[in-house]
C-alpha cells in the first residue's frame, strides 16, 4: 500500500478540512446560546447555512481530489501524547471520507431545510438546530478523523447528539427513557471499540490508520489477535448500527422528531458501523472468522428485523425496523467481502430511507401528530407530493428497477449467492418481507378510506415547500442514485466501485479470489429476475390484503399466536429487562444494604474500635474533643524525634 501523502498546499487544505466540521460547530454555539432569543429566520440561516457551506467545501475537496490517489492527511495539532502513544488531531481525506462528507453534509443540509418547516411551531426551534448542527460536527469528525481515537471522538459525539435529540421533548418520560437507553446501549458497543483501540495500539504501536494498515499485511501478528481486534471493533459497530443483539434502542429512538429519525437514525449515524468496517477492511480481510460472524449477524438481523416490521402499526416503527434490517443487509455484504457493494447500499439507503422518513414526517405533520396507520388511509389525494415521493422511496427499497435500491441490493445478493446459497435464500426472504411491509405501509396510509377523526380530516394538508422540496430532491436521488453502480451485465464501468478501488488495494492483494468476477451473465440475469419477482409478489400480496380486502390491522391486544409474538417484537425488550436491567437494579440495592451497611461498615468499624483501645478513649472523642487527639498525635511525632535524639 502506498504511504498516505501530505498535500503540497498543506496549510490551505488543513484550513478547509478544519472549516468543514468547524462551521456546524459554530452554528451549534450560536444557536445553542441564542436559543429563545434569536429570531427563527436567523436560526434557520445559521443552522442551514453552516451546513451548506460545509457541503460546498466538501464538493471542492471532491473535485480537487487527484483521481486514483490514496488520499492525504492534515494534522491540526497533537492531541494526546504519552510515552510511545501519540494521537494527532488529524484529518484524512480519501475516497471513503470524501463520499461520506458529501453524504453527511448533503443529506444533512436537505434535512436541515426540511426541519425549518417541520419544527416551525416548536418552542425549542433554536435548540433543535443547535443539536442538529452539533450532530453534523460530530459525524464529520467521525468520518474525517485520521486515526481510531478521532473516530471514537465522533462516535461518542454522535451518540450524545442522538441522546439529546431522541429526548428532545424532555418533559415526556418515555422519550427520556428511550434517549437514555440509546446512550447506554451504544456505550456497551463503545467499550468493545475502546478495547479494540487498545489492542491496535499494543499490536501496531499506533492508532493512526495509515500506520496500522501499511503494517498490517506484513507484520507477523497472530490470527487470534487480528480476530480479537476485528471482533471488538465489530461490537462497537453492533451498538452504533443497531445489530443483533444491541438493536433494541433504534426502534425506541423514534421518539425523537422525525427529521432526526431521517438524518441520524437512517441516513448517517447508524451507518457509522459500516464505515468503521470499511475503514478497517485490511484487518477484516485478514480475519475470515470475523467476516463469517459479521455476515451471520448481518443476515440474522436483516431477517429478524424485517419480520418484526411486518405487523407494526406505527408508521415510524415500520421504518425503524426496516432500517435495522437494511443495516443487516449492509453487514451481510461486508461479511462476504463485497466492501464497495456494502457502501453502495449505504448511499442508496441514505437516499430512500431519508426520503421515507421525511415522507412519514410529512404524513404525521398533516395528521396533527398521528403515527398509527390504522387511523390513516386515503391520504394520497390530500398529500399528492408526499404520496408520489414516498412511492418512489418504496419502489427503491423494494428493489424494483430502475430505482436506486434495486442496483445495490441486487449486487449484494449476487455476492452472497457466490458465497453461500443458503444465505442467499435468507437474504431473499428478507427482501420479500421488506417489499411486503413497505407496500403495506403505503396501502394503509395512502389508499382506502380515511379512518381518522373528523378534526384530523379537517386539518389534512400538503406540507409547505420547505418540506416537499427536500422530498422531491431525495426522490430524484432515489430514482437515479443506482446508476453510479451499474451491474456488469449492463456496463463494465461501475463508477462507484472504480472510484473506491484504491481503498481495497491491500485487501485485494491479500485475497484476490474474493475480488474477481466469476458470475456468468445468465446467472446474473436469473438472480436479478428472481429478486424482482419476489418483490413484486410481496407487493401484490400486500395489495390484495390491504386494498382489495380492505383489511385493517386488529386493535391493540387482540392479536393471537405468531402474530402476537411478532407484534410484540418477540418480547426481546421484556427479556432484556428481566435478565439484565432488573438484576443490576437489585444488585445495586442489595450491595448497598447488605454488603456496604451489613458487612464492610460494621467489620471495619469494629476493627477500628479494637485497635483504638476500646471505650474510654472513644468517649473522649465522641464528646467532640477531636482536637485533643490531634495534639496527642503531633506530640507523638515530637516524642519519637526526641527519643531518637536521646538514644543516639
Amino acid at each position, binding site marked *: 500500500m502506498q504511504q498516505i501523502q501530505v498535500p503540497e498546499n498543506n496549510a490551505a487544505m488543513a484550513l478547509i478540512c478544519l472549516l468543514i466540521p468547524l462551521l456546524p460547530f459554530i452554528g451549534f454555539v450560536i444557536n445553542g446560546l441564542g436559543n429563545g432569543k434569536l429570531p427563527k429566520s436567523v436560526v434557520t440561516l445559521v443552522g442551514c447555512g453552516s451546513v451548506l457551506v460545509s457541503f460546498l467545501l466538501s464538493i471542492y475537496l471532491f473535485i480537487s481530489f487527484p483521481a486514483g490517489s490514496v488520499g492525504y492527511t492534515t494534522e491540526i495539532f497533537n492531541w494526546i501524547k504519552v510515552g510511545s502513544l501519540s494521537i494527532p488531531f488529524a484529518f484524512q481525506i480519501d475516497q471513503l471520507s470524501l463520499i461520506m462528507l458529501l453524504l453527511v453534509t448533503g443529506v444533512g443540509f436537505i434535512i436541515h431545510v426540511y426541519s425549518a418547516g417541520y419544527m416551525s411551531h416548536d418552542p425549542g426551534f433554536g435548540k433543535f438546530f443547535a443539536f442538529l448542527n452539533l450532530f453534523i460536527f460530530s459525524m464529520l469528525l467521525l468520518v474525517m478523523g485520521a486515526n481510531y481515537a478521532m473516530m471514537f471522538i465522533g462516535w461518542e459525539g454522535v451518540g450524545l447528539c442522538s441522546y439529546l435529540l431522541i429526548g428532545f421533548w424532555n*418533559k415526556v418520560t418515555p422519550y427520556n427513557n428511550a434517549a437514555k437507553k440509546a446512550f447506554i446501549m451504544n456505550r456497551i458497543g463503545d467499550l468493545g471499540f475502546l478495547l479494540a483501540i487498545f489492542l491496535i495500539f499494543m499490536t501496531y504501536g499506533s492508532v493512526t490508520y495509515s500506520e496500522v494498515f501499511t503494517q498490517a499485511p506484513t507484520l507477523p501478528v497472530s490470527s487470534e489477535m487480528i480476530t480479537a481486534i476485528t471482533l471488538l471493533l465489530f461490537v462497537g459497530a453492533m451498538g452504533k448500527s443497531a445489530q443483533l443483539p444491541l438493536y433494541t434502542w433504534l426502534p425506541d429512538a423514534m421518539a425523537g422528531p422525525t427529521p432526526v429519525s431521517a438524518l441520524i437514525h437512517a441516513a448517517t449515524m447508524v451507518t457509522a458501523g459500516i464505515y468503521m468496517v470499511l475503514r478497517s477492511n485490511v484487518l477484516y480481510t485478514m480475519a475470515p472468522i470475523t467476516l463469517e460472524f459479521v455476515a451471520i449477524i448481518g443476515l440474522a438481523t436483516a431477517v429478524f428485523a424485517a419480520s418484526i416490521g411486518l405487523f407494526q402499526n406505527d408508521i415510524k416503527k415500520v421504518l425503524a425496523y426496516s432500517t435495522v434490517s437494511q443495516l443487516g443487509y449492509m453487514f451481510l455484504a461486508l461479511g462476504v467481502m463485497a466492501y464497495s457493494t456494502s457502501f453502495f447500499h449505504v448511499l442508496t439507503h441514505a437516499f430512500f430511507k431519508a426520503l421515507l422518513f421525511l415522507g412519514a414526517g410529512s404524513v404525521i405533520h398533516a395528521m396533527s401528530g398521528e403515527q398509527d396507520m390504522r387511523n390513516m388511509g386515503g391520504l394520497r389525494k390530500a398529500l399528492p407530493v408526499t404520496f408520489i415521493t414516498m412511492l418512489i422511496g418504496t419502489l427503491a427499497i423494494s428493489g424494483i428497477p430502475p430505482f436506486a435500491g434495486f442496483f445495490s441490493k441486487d449486487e449484494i445478493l449476487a455476492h452472497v449467492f457466490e458465497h453461500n446459497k443458503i444465505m442467499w435464500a435468507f437474504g431473499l426472504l428478507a427482501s420479500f418481507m421488506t417489499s411486503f411491509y413497505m407496500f403495506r405501509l403505503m396501502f394503509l396510509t395512502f389508499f382506502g378510506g380515511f379512518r381518522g377523526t373528523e378534526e384530523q380530516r379537517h386539518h389534512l394538508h400538503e406540507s409547505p415547500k420547505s418540506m416537499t422540496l427536500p422530498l422531491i430532491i431525495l426522490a430524484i436521488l432515489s430514482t437515479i442514485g443506482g446508476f453510479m453502480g451499474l451491474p456488469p451485465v449492463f456496463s463494465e464501468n461501475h463508477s462507484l466501485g472504480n472510484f473506491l478501488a484504491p481503498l481495497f488495494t491491500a485487501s485485494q492483494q491479500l485475497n484476490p479470489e474474493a475480488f474477481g468476477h466469476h458470475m456468468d451473465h445468465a446467472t446474473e440475469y436469473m438472480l436479478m429476475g428472481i429478486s424482482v419477482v419476489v418483490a413484486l409478489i410481496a407487493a401484490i400480496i400486500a395489495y390484495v390484503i390491504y386494498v382489495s380486502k380492505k383489511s385493517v390491522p386488529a386493535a391493540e391486544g387482540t392479536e393471537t399466536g405468531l402474530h402476537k409474538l411478532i407484534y410484540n417484537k418477540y418480547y426481546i425488550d421484556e427479556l432484556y429487562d428481566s435478565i439484565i436491567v432488573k438484576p443490576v437494579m437489585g444488585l445495586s440495592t442489595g450491595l448497598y444494604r447488605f454488603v456496604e451497611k451489613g458487612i464492610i461498615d460494621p467489620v471495619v468499624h469494629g476493627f477500628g474500635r479494637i485497635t483504638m483501645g476500646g471505650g474510654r478513649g472513644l468517649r473522649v472523642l465522641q464528646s467532640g474533643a477531636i482536637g485533643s487527639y490531634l495534639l496527642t498525635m503531633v506530640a507523638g511525632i515530637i516524642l519519637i524525634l526526641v527519643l531518637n535524639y536521646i538514644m543516639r
Partner: protein
Amino acid sequence: MLTALLLFWPALAGLLVLLMKGEAAKKTAFGAAVIEFLIAVYAAVSFEPNAATQFEINQPWIQNAGISFHIGMDGISLLLVLLTAFLVPLIILSSFKHTYNNAGTFYALILFMQMGMIGSFVALDAFVFYFFWEVALIPIYFICGIWGGERRVPVTFKFFIYTIFGSLFMLVGFVYLYFQTPGTHTSDISAFYNLALSPENQSWVFWFIFLAFAIKMPVFPFHTWQPDTYTEAPTPGTMLLSGIMLKMGIYGVIRWLLPVVPAGVAQWADVVLVLAIIGIIYGAIIAIRQNDLKRLTAFSSISHVGLIAAGLFTLNMQGLQGAMIQMLSHGINVVGMFFLIDIIFRRTGTREIKALGGITQYAKFFTIAFMILLLGTVALPLTNGFVGEFLLLSGVFQYNYIMGAVAGLTIILGSVYLFRMFQRVMFGEANTTTAKFTDLTASELAVLIPLIILVFWIGLHPNTFLNISEPAVQNLLSIIKR
C-alpha cells in the same frame, strides 16, 4: 523560595483571616487564595520541563535526627499544587451565598488546610510529609465536625478513626524505614529511594504505608467513611475532601510507596488492582440506586478513584500519566458536581432525586453547566474525563486484558447512574419544589466558568499538563524498575 512562598502564604493569610468576621473574612480569604493561585501559575510558567526537582529548599530542621525541612517540586508535585491553588479560591467563592457562624475561623481553616495539602505535595522528607499530612487533616475535622449536617458528630468520628488509624501505620512504616537508612539515619526522600530492603520486609512495609493512602483515596474496602463524610460535611468541606485531599493518597502512592518499596509493589500489585477494580464496579453499581445527590456523587467518586488507583499499579506510562491527568479532571468535575448539587439544595431545600424534576425548563445555563460536567464525568471524548479514562484503561488493559475489560465496564455503568440521575433531576414535568427554579447567578457562573474552561482545555489539549509531568513520571518509573 517559590515553594516556601506557596506553602506559607496561605498560613499567613489564614492567621489574618482568623481575626476577621463575616464578609471581610470571606473576601480576604478569597483574595489570599487568588494570590496563591497567581503564585502557582508563576511557578508553572518558570518551571523547566524536565525531570529535575525545582524551587528546592533543604534546610536542616532537626539536625541530629537527620531530618531536614526539604521541599521542592517536580512536574508531578507541580500539577497537584496547581490543582490545589486553582480549586481553593473557587471553593471559597462557591460558599459566598452561605453564611457560616464564626466565618473567620471557617475560612482560616480552609487556608490552613491548603497549607497542609500543598505541604504534603512538596515535601521531600518523610517526616515533613507526615507532618503536613496530619496538618491538613486537623482543619477538615473541625470543618466537618462544627459546620456539618445533622449527623456530623458520629460521621466525623468515623472519618477520624479511619484516617488516624491509617496515619499511625504509615508513621510506623516511616520510622522503620528511617532506621534502615545507613550511617547517620535520615528521613530524606533520596535515602528512602536508595534503601535496599529485602523483598520480605518490603512486603509488610508496603501495607503499613499503603493503608494510609488506601483509606484516604479511598480504595475498596477501606471506603466506608467516605460516603457518610461527603454527605454530612458542609459543601466546601466535601469539595476540599473530594477535589483535593483524596489526591494526597494517590500522590502518596506515587511519591512514597512505588519507588520506596518496589519489590513490595511487585508482590502486591495484583491484589491492589483487583481491589481497585472491585471498587470501580462496586461504587458504580451502588451509585445507580442512590437517592441523595451527594451520596450518589460520593459513590461515583469511589468508582472513579478506583480506576486511578488501578492505573498507578500498572507501572506503565499510560497508567501513571492517566492517573496524573485524571487527578486534575476528577478534582475539577467533582468540585463542579458538588457545587451544582449545593445550588439545587439551596434553591429547593432538598437533595433527594425523587423530589426533583423538570429543572431544565427554568434554568438554561444551569442545564448547560450540569450537562458539561456530567459529560466530563462520564468521559465523553473532548472533555477532560475522556483523556484520563482512556489512558488509565489503556494502562490497565496493557497490564492485564481481563482486568482492563472489567475496569472498562465503568464507561457503561457510569452512563447508567449519571444519565439516570440527570434525567430524574432535570427532565420530566416540574413539581412544586422545582417550579420557578432560578437560573445561575453571576457569582455562580464565576465559579462554574473556570471549571468548564478546564473541562475542555484538558479534553482538547491535555498535552499542556501531560508535558509537565511526563519527564518526572518517566524518571519515577526508571527508579522503580532499576
